[in-house]
């Protein structure tokens, strides 16, 4: 066990820090003037993730088996190439020092450092406390994702999904960590990686806030807001535990892409322009919804800025074009085109998928959230604080500064996508969209807290302002943390999960999957999606009775056999389903369907624990 921890702790920086760090070395040099150490350290992780994904895609295209040694060698070669570029581009690097103003931005004071450390300690502590109750792999989404990662590990090739629901970037990094460290996918490793991305996402929000508002105070407060106020509720701790891989990685990459876009446009810097395109490519290869949200966000920010500066629109567009029409962004664009067209095209890249996500909302779950639903989802405290930030940013609005368009445009567009999606022709589940509100709200909340203090500390009524601030903070902290506290589980599910694992191992070792077909119940069995990792036969093996509401869809007929074979196995419909699907084994909750199935004469019962019963159709 301790060797595994050590291997994991070595594999994570090797794959998720070094490639990004060397890449930045090649771009900015050792003490480049454009980036502080703090920013480089944060950005090393997302850039590494994207590079590792791209390297794996290239290996797969070249027909090279994806194995541990190959990955280690490829990462080392990549780092060496970056180092060679660094030596070539920065021959007299040692004489250079970081420019003072760049250093200052993230040069926190002692009290700011203490505040950030406390905020981070609390953020990590809350997440760890929450995850300690759910750490055994059991989440449905994570089970599905890990099936594909295990497929990469077992075959050495990238999987052919056959459905647009899965995206390759959600699976490669888990396979890569497994292959380089040997730490299995049915351990804490996947959740720990997600936790890592989640924490890096907090840092990404902080550097974005710092750069946008040119304030280390706002950056410091952003740690507290993103890390503590949004600790557990979706898309944070719960999504880490639930294995919502795309969202977690997307929430890390969206602020990174915006950070580079902002700096590219404000500083007219081609390296940042290229890195923006590069991060966007990473987003496209990882999560379509996050990429979709990002496209809308970036478009809203830029359009708002152009509208507000309509008189200079041509000049602004020309400047932007000049920034992007330079060698580095063009090279990244070409590399991206080569990847998308020749190396690996994401499974959702087709007109049908785009058509499904745009247009008038087609389902009740996509028609938008009411304001009270948004309040419930985000949390009152977070919404009030973000609203205050919106108001203060609006009052301080300077049309010529992109920062205000970014803060207000970003929030406005995601809010509209959540509240009135039909206005933007968005046709995706509103609950999924609302999860992204926390990103601009973090920015606005951090701005609100700092500006509030600055405004009132400058006035005579300092006592009043301090009292008000503390009342506000008390409300925000208690309300924000109570949202998280409500998410903690009261029941330890570890025993049930281990019983599911035991039954999975039993069935995988005794059934002949070429002849036997298993149906398991997702409704009343926890961790059931992990069954497929014991078989590794096919993504759709074993069959599963899904959530019952999914069988009712007024827009199209759904298959109902997986439901009928459990709810009414003796009916004509049930019997017809058995002969059609070939199902001859059924795994159900022993206390619920298990006791009902005992009454059916057509079934033998071959396995029984406290939680799981397995029946065989005679």
């Amino acid at each position, binding site marked *: 066990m301790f060797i595994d921890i050590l291997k994991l702790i070595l594999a994570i920086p090797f794959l998720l820090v070094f490639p990004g760090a060397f890449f930045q070395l090649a771009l900015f040099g050792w003490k480049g003037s454009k980036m502080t*150490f703090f920013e480089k350290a944060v950005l090393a992780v997302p850039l590494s993730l994207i590079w590792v994904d791209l390297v794996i895609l290239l290996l797969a295209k070249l027909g090279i088996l994806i194995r541990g040694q190959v990955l280690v060698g490829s990462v080392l070669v990549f780092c060496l190439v970056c180092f060679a570029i660094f030596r070539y581009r920065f021959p007299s690097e040692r004489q250079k020092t970081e420019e003072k103003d760049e250093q200052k931005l993230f040069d926190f004071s002692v009290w700011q450092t203490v505040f950030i450390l406390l905020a981070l300690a609390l953020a990590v502590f809350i997440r760890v406390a929450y995850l300690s109750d759910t*750490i055994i792999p059991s989440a449905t989404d994570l089970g599905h994702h890990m099936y594909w990662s295990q497929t990469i590990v077992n075959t050495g090739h990238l999987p052919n999904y056959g459905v647009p629901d899965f995206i390759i970037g959600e699976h490669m990094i888990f396979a890569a960590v497994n292959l380089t460290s040997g730490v299995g996918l049915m351990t804490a490793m996947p959740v*720990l990686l997600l936790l*890592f991305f989640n924490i890096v996402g907090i840092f990404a929000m902080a550097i974005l806030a710092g750069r946008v508002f040119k304030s280390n105070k706002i950056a410091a407060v952003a740690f507290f807001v993103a890390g503590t106020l949004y600790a557990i509720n979706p898309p944070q701790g719960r999504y880490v535990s639930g294995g919502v891989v795309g969202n977690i990685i997307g929430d890390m990459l969206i602020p990174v892409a915006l950070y580079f876009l902002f700096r590219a446009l404000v500083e007219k810097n081609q390296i940042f322009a290229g890195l923006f395109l590069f991060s966007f490519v990473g987003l496209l290869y990882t999560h379509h919804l996050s990429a979709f949200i990002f496209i809308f966000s970036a478009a809203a920010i830029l359009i708002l800025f152009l509208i507000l500066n309509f008189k200079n629109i041509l000049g602004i567009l020309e400047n932007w074009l000049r920034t992007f029409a330079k060698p580095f962004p063009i090279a990244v664009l070409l590399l991206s085109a080569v990847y998308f067209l020749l190396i690996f095209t994401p499974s959702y890249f087709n007109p049908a998928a785009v058509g499904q996500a745009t247009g008038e909302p087609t389902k009740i779950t996509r028609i938008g959230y009411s304001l009270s639903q948004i309040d419930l989802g985000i949390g009152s405290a977070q919404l009030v604080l973000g609203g205050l930030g919106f108001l203060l940013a609006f009052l301080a609005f300077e049309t010529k500064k992109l920062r205000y368009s970014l803060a207000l445009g970003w929030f406005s567009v995601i809010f509209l996508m959540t509240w009135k999606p039909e206005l933007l022709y968005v046709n995706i589940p509103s609950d999924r969209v609302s999860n992204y509100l926390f990103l601009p709200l973090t920015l606005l909340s951090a701005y609100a807290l700092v500006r509030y203090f600055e405004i009132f500390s400058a006035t005579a009524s300092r006592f009043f302002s301090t009292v008000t601030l503390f009342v506000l903070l008390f409300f925000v902290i208690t309300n924000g943390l109570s949202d998280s506290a409500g998410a903690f589980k009261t029941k330890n599910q570890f025993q049930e999960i281990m019983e599911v694992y035991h039954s999975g191992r039993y069935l995988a070792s005794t059934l002949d999957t070429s002849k036997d077909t298993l149906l398991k119940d997702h409704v009343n069995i926890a961790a059931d999606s992990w069954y497929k990792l014991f078989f590794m036969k096919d993504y759709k093996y074993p069959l599963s009775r899904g959530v019952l509401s999914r069988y009712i869809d007024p827009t199209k007929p759904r298959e109902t056999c997986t439901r009928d074979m459990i709810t009414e196995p003796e009916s004509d419909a049930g019997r017809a389903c058995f002969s059609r699907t070939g199902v001859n084994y059924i795994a159900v909750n022993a206390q619920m369907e298990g006791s009902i199935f005992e009454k059916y004469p057509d079934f033998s019962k071959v396995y029984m624990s406290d939680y799981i019963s397995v029946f065989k159709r005679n």
Partner: protein
Amino acid sequence: MPSKIIIIAIVVLLIASFATLFVIEAKNHDYDYKKAWSVVYFENPRDESLDFAIENHEGESANYAYQIFSNDAKLIEGNIDIKAGATQKISPVLDGEKIKGTRVMIDVRYKDADYRIYKDLK
């Protein structure tokens, strides 16, 4: 320098957190650690063999009482002690003619829990 302290602190914090969560997972990823359950199953569910196994994950040595029925007729009755975490395989010797075409049920009891498995023989 303070920004370096923050990076170093989060690295240390993450290593400690990862190690803690990894150990919690590894310890609990065990059929017996802080758990109390049993399981009874046929060694081979695919054929008509009646060999079965009892696994004791109750966290202590346990005495299991078992009975084997052919339809409603009791054929065998017995008790067996199984150590904590151990598996006991049992191969009942039954008259093939007597049980032909019947439902053979194995009923295993431990304290209040009742585990029943059965096969319908041809």
